[in-house]
């Protein structure tokens, strides 16, 4: 096992999008979500822990198409009706046509989330339906393989200890599940509790 993160062990799935600096990488046994511009944060989604994928179509694509479409129509009408300002209208038509085509060709905008046993995380770098489909096509076989292997190995519940690294969606261990009436472990640096066995009392008759 590598002792430090290496780009060689990951394959880039998606880079940053228009409004997100997130990047998603595919690892051997997990997906790695890299987030942040000046401080990268890593979140791992182990294939055996992914419980579901949710995709929802958003209205952004249609709204942008409408806005650009109306503007294009206005500039087209302007260029046809006016002879003096015709070059200006044509220039504006071309300027608006480029983002219109860009948005149109990239396809439907979506929101995508990955669900694990403990949380549902929205993946902002997956903003188009084609990207979501690519994620599903690439990752679903790996998830299937991992979860079938996991089911064969462990018919019992997945986590026998809440602190098993790799069973949580992030590198952060889950909180301590203390039993009521029992104290949580002391803070490191403090003196631990030393258990002293009770002193046996002499009950034998003299």
């Amino acid at each position, binding site marked *: 096992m590598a002792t430090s993160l290496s780009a060689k062990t990951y394959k880039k799935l998606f880079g940053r999008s228009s409004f997100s600096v997130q990047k998603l990488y595919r690892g051997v046994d997990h997906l790695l979500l890299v987030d942040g511009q000046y401080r*990268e944060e890593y979140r791992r989604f182990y294939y055996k822990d992914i419980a579901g994928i*949710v995709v929802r179509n958003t209205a952004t694509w249609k709204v942008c198409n409408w806005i650009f479409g109306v503007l294009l129509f206005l500039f087209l009408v302007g260029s046809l009706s006016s002879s003096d300002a015709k070059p200006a209208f044509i220039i504006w038509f071309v300027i608006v046509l480029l983002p219109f085509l860009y948005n149109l060709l990239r396809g439907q905008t979506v929101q995508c989330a990955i669900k694990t046993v403990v949380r549902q995380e929205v993946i902002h770098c997956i903003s188009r339906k084609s990207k979501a489909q690519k994620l599903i096509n690439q990752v679903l076989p790996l998830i299937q393989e991992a979860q079938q292997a996991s089911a064969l190995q462990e018919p019992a519940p997945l986590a026998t200890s809440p602190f098993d*690294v790799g069973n949580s969606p992030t590198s952060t261990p889950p909180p301590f599940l203390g039993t009521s009436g029992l104290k949580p472990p002391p803070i490191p640096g403090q003196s631990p509790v030393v258990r002293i066995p009770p002193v046996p009392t002499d009950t034998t008759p003299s």
Partner: protein
Amino acid sequence: MANSLLCLKCKEPLSLEGAHPYKEYTTRCRVCRSANTVIVLPAMEHRFVRSQASVAAELEASCFYHADRKAESTCHACGRFICNHCTATLDDETLCLPCLMAIRAKGSHAKLANGTVRWDSIALGTAVVSIFIAYFAILTAPAVIYLVLRYWRKGPFSPFENHKWRMALALTLAVLQLVGWSMALNVFISSGIFKI
């Protein structure tokens, strides 16, 4: 809540009746009526189970952190006896939680690395901003040069991005800004605005 998919619009649990594992299934949210396409996977059925820690009998080895619980294993790093509640596994090694946290704080293990400060981006960002606020360049350019020289080799830097061209660009901009400042000062002094 834990074992249901949430609507991406209103965050309410979705109805998954009729969904089959690994198959795409479109369901409408009962609250906001928006359509969500879901893929349900077998891990949805998994439950976290609280580990069982036995109570230590008299004269039996007890957990270092819980005096009343039986020690079930030994930490590979510090050698302390630990109960099941204090046990973490990392690459098939048994560790106690403070040792796990120590390894994580050190950032030396790939599975526990959770972030990196990108000094290359900070240096480049500072150098670029200083172009537009040129008055501050006299302060920021030396800072950028310091950052580049300090973190060029040792890092930390992102394992996923090529940091060297960013560092080189930031260094170039900072040097140019210093040259510009020195030329401007030279002009000011020679024209008599500043007198030394």
